[in-house]
Structures are given as C-alpha cells and as structure tokens.
C-alpha cells in the first residue's frame, strides 16, 4: 500500500465519522468540504489517466455548487423557523 493513499484514506474515514456525529448544521458543511477534497484526490490517484483528472475536476466543482445552495437555504430558513 502506498503511504500517500493511506494518509488520505485515514483522513477521509475520520471526516465521515465526524459528519455523522456532529449536531450543528453549519459545521457539517465544513467537514463535508474536507471530505470532498479527499475523495477528489483519491479518484485521481486511482485512475492514472488524464480522463480521471477531468472526472475529479467536474466532481469537485459540482460538490461546491451543492454546498453553496445548502448554505444559502440555511440563511433563508433561519428566519422562518
């Protein structure tokens, strides 16, 4: 096993457990952003070809779009609730 993949995988597993256990909504988004970095790096290290890089870039940008929409909705809903 390569040492770089081992370090990235350990950080990703830690982030998954912290997302599941945290109560606050805004802090879950921060951990989700870190998990998205880890998965994007793991995809590029698993598929060793330029197409894997394109997949990693498109996945990261759409994940950021999702986080943006969720944070906007938390700000809007806070007044109504």
């Amino acid at each position, binding site marked *: 096993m390569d040492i770089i993949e081992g370090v990235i995988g350990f950080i990703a597993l830690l982030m998954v457990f912290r997302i599941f256990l945290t109560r606050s909504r805004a802090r879950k988004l921060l951990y989700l952003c870190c998990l998205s970095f880890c998965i994007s790096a*793991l995809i590029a290290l698993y598929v060793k070809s330029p197409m894997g890089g*394109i997949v990693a870039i498109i996945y990261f940008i759409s994940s950021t779009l*999702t986080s943006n929409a969720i944070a906007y909705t938390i700000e809007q809903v806070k007044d*109504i*609730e």
Partner: protein
Amino acid sequence: MEILLIVSGVCCILGGLGVILHTNPINKIIMLGLLNVGLIGMIVSSYYLDIAIISSICEPISTIILLLGYMKYLTTLKKKKKYGRDLPILSK
C-alpha cells in the same frame, strides 16, 4: 482491498443510516449528499468514467429542486398556522 472501496462503503452505510435517523430536513439533505459521494466512488472504482460525469452533474440539480421545494413547503405550513390563529379574532 483498494482504499477507495473501503471509504465508499463506509460512506454508503453511514449515509443511509443518517438519512433515516435525522429528523430535520436540511440535515437529511446533507446526509443525502454523503450517500451520493459513496455512489460516485463506487462507479469510479469500476471504471465507468462517463457515467461518473453524468452522475456528478445531475446531483446539484436534484439537490436544488429539493431545497427550493422545502422552502415553499415550510412557508405554506407556517402561513396556514398563522392564518388559522387570526381567523377567530377576525370573526368576532
């Protein structure tokens, strides 16, 4: 086993349990994003790269539809409750 398979499997199991166990809808939508991370990891680990691109483009569309629908639904519920409280005062 490969390291991507292990991370994706843990994401799927914890995401599926999290969607059921949380009760606030925004928490449920965040956990649905976690489940989608596991799906994309599994698709990539069996080398279907084109389907991975389609899946990661379709994820924000579905999430935005659910979030807009939740805001409209919440507004409707709250308006109904306030309207029902105001009505007897108006009728007197």
